[in-house]
């Protein structure tokens, strides 16, 4: 009986941790959530080792340790929010572990994102706004919107066919470079640099770099270094895509 109960706790903890990590939550939050759920279930000692690619979780007293592999990560703040509120409810004894497991399963499978056209518009408008933020002229607003939107779309579709993030980002920055170049030469845009900077921003791993540094400062050395490497790879992909365009023209 006791063993069964521990296994139930284990399942809920690991599923919550997995969803959070795959949605881009901070390392300490994943660990914190898992140990809170375990504590709410009456197991005071739990140990977790969370890295961007795997979670190792172990419960004291039950001699139970499990490993979960995380293959893909993206940023999905809605899921982080939902898992967080479920863990809150468990802590307040609002729901049982069984109900929590059911809800977590539902969160894991459902893909409730904004419609693609809205994401496209958001990427386009943010790209345009970055031109102004970086002190460009309003004349370059529209070209940056076009280039940024196309860049976003190409990342999206290429990532669907080729499961290598690095490659999708590389091609997207190529698309952005070419689009910006064509637009400037067609006389629609003026400053090539500003347009490229603005439209590349939705791809730039600024968040990943900052998260990596924060993990390092919080003492999660392993996650920090790994995330840093991932961010470096992404910026390298973007940089080389743009570099090719700049060398050709």
């Amino acid at each position, binding site marked *: 009986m006791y063993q069964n109960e521990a296994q139930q706790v284990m399942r809920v903890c690991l599923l919550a941790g997995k969803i959070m990590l795959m949605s881009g939550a901070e390392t300490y939050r994943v660990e914190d959530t898992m140990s809170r759920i375990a504590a709410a279930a009456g197991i005071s000692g739990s140990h977790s080792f969370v890295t961007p690619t795997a979670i190792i979780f172990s419960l004291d007293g039950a001699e139970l340790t499990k490993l979960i592999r995380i293959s893909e990560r993206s940023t999905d703040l809605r899921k982080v929010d939902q898992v967080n509120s479920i863990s809150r409810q468990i802590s307040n004894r609002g729901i049982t572990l069984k109900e929590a497991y059911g809800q977590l399963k539902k969160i894991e499978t459902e893909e409730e994102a904004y419609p693609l056209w809205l994401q496209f518009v958001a990427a386009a408008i943010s790209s345009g706004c970055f031109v102004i933020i970086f002190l460009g002229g309003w004349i370059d607003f529209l070209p940056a919107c076009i280039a940024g939107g196309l860049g976003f779309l190409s990342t999206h579709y290429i990532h669907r066919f080729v499961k290598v993030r690095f490659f999708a980002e590389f091609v997207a920055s190529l698309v952005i470079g070419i689009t910006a170049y064509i637009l400037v030469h067609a006389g629609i845009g003026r400053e090539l640099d500003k347009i490229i900077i603005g439209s590349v*921003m939705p791809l730039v791993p600024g968040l990943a770099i900052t998260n990596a540094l924060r993990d390092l400062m919080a003492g999660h050395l392993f996650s920090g270094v790994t995330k840093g490497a991932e961010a470096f790879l992404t910026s390298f992909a973007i940089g080389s895509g743009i570099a090719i365009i700049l060398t050709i023209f």
Partner: protein
Amino acid sequence: MFQQLLTSFFASAGFGILFNAPRKLLIQCGITGMIGWGIYFLFYMYEQNVVYGTFIAAFFVGVISQVFARFYKTPILIFTVGGIIPLVPGGLAYDAMRHFVQNDYNGAVSLAAKVLLLSIAIAIGLVASEVANQFIKKLPDRRPKRMK
């Protein structure tokens, strides 16, 4: 100044959509980004010191995010993500890249160093706001990295 605030609002909110933030919190994401960028821009205009300005701006982004996170009972991550987006030194990184391509390694390395400094300034600013928050709250359990 006004157009800076306006565009930083839309840029941050747009990133909220890209990162699939909950619909009812998009405006708050935008506000966080707008205030952060506004502070940075003031420093940029009067002090010309971008690293310092970035640090202070990131600190305030952290503070505002904490207020919002407490108020709406959500993870703080939702707001900091959008909030720091305008501060990310994308333009400088691009400039560094361009100098590398043009074989101007000296210029490229100094720009890259600045990019690194700015990223560190953002991270330290966020961490500093967390630390400040913990000093204020004086939580009974003293886990170092906790915040809600």
